């Protein structure tokens, strides 16, 4: 799978990928909260609408017992997201707390990052550009802590999410 990644310092990340599907299909997968939740692995409490503050939870899934045991930590975790802009079939953006997966931590007072999905025509499908920016406003302590908690603790969490995503494929 070809994903073109660009980074600007420590604040912004950009991904480009060509999706071999009609624009309407890609748009629905991104802008319909149920469809977004399906591939992302979350369940939202309503449809996406500009300016709306909503929440999602990591959805339970049928996986093998070993992974299921590991998943207990993240299953049902709540995420707050605020929808920013919706320009039909072109642009969808929202804000959230990046990797807010530490149980028992209240992220609500911390700055959010902005995630933008943009669709443009490509020769053989739709070029999707995703940017996430604003990481430099996230307290470094939060970013550093992600790695400090137990040796390899964060790596294990990422591994867990990876397994989770694979299992829900």
């Amino acid at each position, binding site marked *: 799978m070809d994903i073109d990644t660009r980074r600007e310092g*420590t604040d912004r*990340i950009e991904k480009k990928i060509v*999706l071999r599907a009609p624009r309407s299909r890609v748009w629905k997968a991104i802008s319909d909260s149920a469809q977004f939740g399906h591939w992302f692995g979350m369940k939202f409490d309503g449809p996406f609408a500009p300016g709306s503050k909503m929440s999602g939870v990591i959805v339970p899934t049928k996986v093998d017992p070993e992974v299921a045991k590991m998943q207990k930590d993240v299953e049902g975790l709540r995420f707050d997201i605020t929808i920013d802009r919706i320009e039909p079939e072109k642009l969808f953006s929202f804000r959230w707390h*990046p990797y807010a997966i530490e149980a028992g931590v209240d992220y609500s007072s911390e700055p959010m990052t902005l995630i933008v999905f943009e669709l443009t025509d490509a020769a053989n499908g739709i070029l999707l550009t*995703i940017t996430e920016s604003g*990481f430099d406003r996230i307290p*470094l302590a939060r970013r*550093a802590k992600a790695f400090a908690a137990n040796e390899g603790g964060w790596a294990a969490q990422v591994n867990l*999410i990876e397994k989770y*995503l694979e299992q829900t494929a």
Partner: protein
Amino acid sequence: MSITQLTEGFRVTRQAITKHLRMMEHAGLVRATKQGRESLWDLAPEGLEDAREYLDVISRGWDLALGRLKDFVEA
């Protein structure tokens, strides 16, 4: 480096530079030490390393999510 040194060669105001430095200080990427009435600014390399690693993790997360999206829309 001092604010005066940092402002040289940039077409931005001293205030703008200071604002950005404070933001980067808050993020742990640079640090200031007082020398008399002036602040001297240094890079905080360990902060940069953490910030880069953090972005690696985020980047990996998006790769996985995009793989799922691709499978979903191309199915």
